[in-house]
């Protein structure tokens, strides 16, 4: 009898858990369903925008998956990689290497910087176990200070910058925006394809596809398995002979390097770098998109990434228009989408923490019952 009710509660729990897991995507589908007709944008425009934004953002968001696998939560430190990518692009555009070769060179420059930053980030996160997220979040601010020091003061004075088009008039430091006109959408347009008026960035999608395959393959490797084990339980993993610290650092390094490459893909699509602000919001938007796709702090899949990009950016496109249509003030829609991004992250974090506590109390309940049973025997 007791067994039967037990399975029943488990089943009930499963349905409830599924609903809880997908509550955020469902909510977003509802928001979009309400906003799209009010925004009054043509379907072809919307599809075009979504496809473009998918190519622009998917790589960056994919970089978040590996630290989640290693149990380190949402990597707010992906901003570090984004800064490394920007530094690569700034140098390349000063050397006037354009098009695809320029992009590849920028990536080559960004990788060692990303590795160094990732190493730094990973080491610090190992010192702050249990509060990785807040720490990686503060690291992103800290490194932003260092980045500003390098780009605003050292570039042009110590690091040679030749062309005055990207230098501030005072002789050192980089201008607020660096144009990437010669690189703009070179990757997207490498294999031109237009289906029914929708421009498809084939090459970008191929690269994103390759990354997805790599991530799937990576999960099956020894290192990938180790990361999962560490993510499940650090102590058990350590007893099994896994070097926990090293595995965690590696997961952050991989994430940072991917974020650097992702940022270069992102910026070649945008066509210019906002030197001091491009990276600051990128972490927040990528994390929000991933969460909107139904991921949680401890579980995320490739499917979440794509669903997230579509839903989040659909909301992003239609919200200002819909806001303007309702209230007559476009700023409200603008603020609304910022609010939604933050609120989504807040809700996801709260859900994660409450679930963690529930699981803990359930575990202790189970232990209690087992003990009781043993005593009865």
């Amino acid at each position, binding site marked *: 009898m007791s067994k039967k009710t037990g399975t029943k509660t488990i089943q009930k729990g499963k349905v409830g858990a599924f609903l809880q897991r997908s509550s955020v995507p469902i909510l977003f589908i509802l928001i979009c369903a309400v906003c799209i007709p009010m925004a009054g944008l043509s379907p072809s425009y919307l599809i075009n925008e979504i496809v473009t934004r998918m190519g622009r953002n998917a790589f960056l968001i994919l970089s978040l998956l590996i630290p989640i696998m290693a149990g380190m939560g949402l990597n707010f430190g992906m901003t570090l990689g984004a800064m490394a990518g920007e530094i690569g692009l700034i140098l390349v555009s000063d050397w006037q290497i354009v098009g695809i070769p320029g992009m590849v060179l920028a990536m080559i420059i960004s990788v060692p910087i990303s590795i160094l930053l990732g190493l730094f980030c990973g080491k*610090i996160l190992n*010192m*702050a176990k*249990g*509060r990785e*997220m*807040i*720490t990686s*979040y*503060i*690291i992103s*601010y*800290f490194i*932003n*200070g*260092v980045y*500003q*020091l390098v780009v*605003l*003061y050292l570039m042009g004075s110590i690091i040679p910058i030749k062309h005055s088009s990207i230098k501030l008039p005072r002789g050192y430091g980089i201008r607020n925006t660096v144009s990437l006109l010669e690189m703009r959408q070179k990757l997207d347009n490498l294999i031109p394809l237009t289906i029914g008026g929708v421009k498809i960035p084939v090459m970008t999608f191929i690269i994103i596809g390759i990354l997805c395959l790599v991530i799937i393959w990576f999960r099956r490797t020894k290192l990938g398995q180790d990361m999962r084990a560490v993510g499940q339980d650090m102590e058990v993993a350590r007893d099994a002979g896994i070097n926990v610290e090293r595995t965690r650092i590696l997961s952050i390094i991989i994430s940072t390097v991917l974020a650097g490459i992702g940022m270069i893909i992102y910026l070649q699509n945008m066509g210019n770098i906002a030197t001091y602000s491009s990276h600051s919001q990128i972490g927040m938007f990528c994390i929000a998109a991933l969460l909107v796709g139904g991921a949680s702090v401890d579980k995320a899949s490739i499917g979440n990434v794509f669903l997230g990009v579509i839903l989040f950016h659909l909301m992003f496109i239609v919200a200002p228009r819909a806001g303007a249509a309702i*209230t007559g*003030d476009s*700023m*409200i829609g603008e*603020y*609304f989408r*910022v*609010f939604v991004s*933050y*609120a989504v*992250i*807040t809700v996801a*974090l*709260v859900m*994660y*923490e*409450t679930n*963690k*506590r529930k699981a803990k109390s359930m575990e202790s309940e189970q232990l209690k019952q087992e003990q009781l049973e043993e005593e009865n025997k």
Partner: protein
Amino acid sequence: MNEKAINKKEKSWFGKLVESYGLPRLIITAFLLLLLILAPFVGADLPTQVSNIIARFSWNGILVLAMVPMVHSGCGLNFGLPLGIISGLLGATMSIEFGFTGPLSFVMAILIATPFALVLGTVYGWLLNKIKGGEMMIATYVGFSSVSLMCMMWLILPYKSPNMVWGLSGKGLRTTISLEGYYNEVLANFLRIRIGNLDIPVGTLLFFTVLALGIWAFLHTKTGTAMTAVGSNPTFARAAGINVDKMRLLSVVMSTWLAAVGILVYEQGFGFVQLYMAPFYMALPAVSAILIGGATVNKATIMNVIIGTILFQGIVTMTPTVMNNMIHMDMSEVIRIIVSNGMILYALTRKTEGAK
């Protein structure tokens, strides 16, 4: 083993100082002293600089003080400070909207802000009780979401006062509202001392002292010690019959209310109400100030608040002037970012007992 013991004994006075005072704090203090010594040589007027530091201390002190209750009850650093700031801003704007002027507008602002702070603080505290262990990250995002929600509200809420709304459309609050004729410098002008270039806003300092003493006294009452017990060892506190959740809730409400009062005091010194995205980044300077003062994630005293605010504000005010005069390069913003966030990182990576 033996050698180690001897080594420990023979630690120099410097080593002892580092241990008791903390290396980062020592470096920052030395840096500030260096700036103060350099100031006259590079042509900056020392009394003016000192007055600046005192003035900025008086503006920010209460915001930093708002960290103390939550640290004491084990809720960690209050990254959710913007929530309290928003209550303060609601008080400020409503007080002006209802037509209060002069010093009365300041009193009314505090009175109107109080219920908001209590309600928001209660909700916030209830939330933090549900997610023990993950407070800091969630606090950050609670702060952010509330600020962005209020961005919409400032546009929608039916404010009418011509001194606050956009002139052209007649609705929606401006990003900065001048406090001229309202409570600009009401505290600062009370018993103000002016000697040459030295200018001390005694009233504001007194106001800070009263609140700081209040918190100090509270922490020594029965409830206060219970709160500290919850922070240092929740299991023990529960065994001793203390309602842990209630204590934590109380501390969060206190923090939120102090933040609301803190922003009003800040505004009376600064002379403007800043709305929209302004409260967004106000938590980080306050957090790093108290950490520079020697607090840790679960231990903070009033002394930490005072020392930390002086050091932090000292560096913020001194670096631009000294640096500008010395090398004609204003690196103060970058230094501020690196120092304040570096300090928070340092505190987060310290091993703290009883954190989990």
